[in-house]
């Protein structure tokens, strides 16, 4: 069975504006997921949070709250990566 999607249509040289929009939205969603679930990006945010605290740009309370959020996020991502779940 053929999959009637925008990729197949594009391959055939047919462009359907509505379907192209879906394709763009999918791409944006994938990029957002990639950013949300990339441990390197989360680690950089942990470093940034620490740096802003050291520079006195954020309070100790704000630092600790953000740190807890990021650590939990990282832990969840590590679990998902260990379980070999892919987002792209």
């Amino acid at each position, binding site marked *: 069975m053929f999959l009637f999607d925008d990729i197949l249509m594009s391959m055939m040289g047919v462009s359907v504006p509505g379907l192209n929009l879906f394709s763009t939205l999918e791409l944006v969603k994938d990029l957002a997921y990639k950013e949300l679930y990339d441990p390197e990006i989360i680690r*950089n945010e942990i470093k*940034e949070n620490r*740096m*802003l605290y050291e520079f006195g*740009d954020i309070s100790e309370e704000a630092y600790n709250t953000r740190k807890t959020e990021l650590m939990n996020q990282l832990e969840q991502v590590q679990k998902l990566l260990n379980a070999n779940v892919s987002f792209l």
Partner: protein
Amino acid sequence: MKNKTQPPENGIYVYCVIRTPGETKNFGNIGFGGKEVYTIDYKEFSSVASVAPLKKYDMENEKEIETHQNVVKMVMMEHSVIPVAYGMVFKSRKLVLASMKVAQKAMKKTLNVVEGKVELGIKILNQQGQASQLDTGSCVEEFEKELGKLSSDSKKLTLFSKRLLMNTAYLVEKDRVDAFSDAVEALETKYKPLNIQYSGPWPAYNFVDIKILSKQQEGGR
């Protein structure tokens, strides 16, 4: 079946490597869990180590990173150190010695790079929400030019935040640290609206292969 709540068994945690002080040395009870930090000697090198849990040491555990840093800082007061990656724990003393044997050549090479030198760090942070009159590009250039003159080597590190303008590590000879600090102070005064963080002295983490005792050891940079 193993009980999940059972603590991990102990291994030997290595903080850094130094040139053998001549006899086994004790640095006090400053290791993980207040354990004694001592030297394990192999020919002309000594691993500075303590008994510690055989587990994964998380990069996000600030308390444990601080313990590692404090031990290295203490050792640095008397010795030139070859830094070892945080979290390097071995199953036994025998395995530490075996790794030192394998890494001996790399350690020699590395010690030549770091002997008598320390690492100093400079971070420049752009101020948030304020349109600065400063040309930040030429400010960074001037920092690089002036501090480059006083260091043996430098390494640009990741700009992990959009607000970071500069994040550089400098390898500086111990007797030039004061001159380096004076230069940083002068630049700080000149570029006052910018936030500047000057840190160190650190062991030369960014100028040597800190995985020197691990399987991936490749020797000095």
